[in-house]
């Protein structure tokens, strides 16, 4: 049900500068910046997952959420096949999970698991439509 780590978001005050550091230090190359509402995001593919270097940029739900996070690693995306089923599975076991909502990229839906359930780790359950 919980298939793989899809992404790890790293909050930074300078996404382009951070991308340079990741490439120069570890050879991990970032893609072109993706403008999302409220966030400037650079994806850095690594294996079957990616790092998301995210910088707040204006208003928007994601930017507003990101603004409340500390710098550094701040969100783990876990891919699921069936978002509604995963939410029901977790809620039945006492975890607090948000309602599903559209993600920043087309065809992506996600829900956030409350950090009280995850021992302090913000987790997004992510469903990618094929």
């Amino acid at each position, binding site marked *: *049900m*919980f*298939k*793989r*780590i899809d992404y*790890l978001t*790293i909050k*930074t005050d300078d996404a382009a*500068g*951070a991308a340079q*550091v*990741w490439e*120069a*230090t*570890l*050879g*991990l190359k970032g893609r072109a910046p993706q403008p999302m509402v409220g966030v400037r995001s650079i994806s850095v593919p*690594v*294996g*079957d*997952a990616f*790092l998301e270097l995210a910088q707040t940029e204006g208003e928007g739900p994601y930017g507003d959420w990101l603004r409340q996070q*500390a*710098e*550094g*690693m*701040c969100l*783990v995306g*876990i*891919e699921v096949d069936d978002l509604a089923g995963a939410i029901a599975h*977790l809620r039945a*076991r*006492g*975890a607090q999970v948000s309602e599903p909502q559209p993600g920043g990229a087309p065809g992506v839906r996600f829900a956030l698991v409350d*950090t009280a*359930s*995850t*021992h*302090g*780790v913000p987790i997004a359950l992510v469903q990618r439509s094929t």
Partner: protein
Amino acid sequence: MIQKIHHIGIAVKSLDEALRFYSETLGLTVHKQAVVEQQGVKAALLTIGQSEIELLEPLGPETPIGRFLERRGEGLHHVCFQTDGIDQELAGLKAKGVELIDQEPRIGLAGRICFLHPRAMKGVLVELAEPLD
């Protein structure tokens, strides 16, 4: 060469309590569990796809994870990337003048490992690992 995210490390107060969520609720399989005295942790690795989640409980307050919990509370601690050649990787980092915690690889739960200094990666604690199994 960096191949993939090997694991994401999470600092927790109690490994048993954290396993209730990550193993019982999420249904992830515990791949390894051990006390690593040298690092001052009781740790478990749980498989998720091609990567793992590492839960780290400190053996005492005066350990790196103990101090992290005191300062930041439970949560994301480090990210570990798998490499097929940790010696070459480390030599390359040294040649570039990258600030390191470990000058030489040591044995950790994930295999032969080393940590970069978080100052080198804009505040992110990065581990490299060459698995032994």
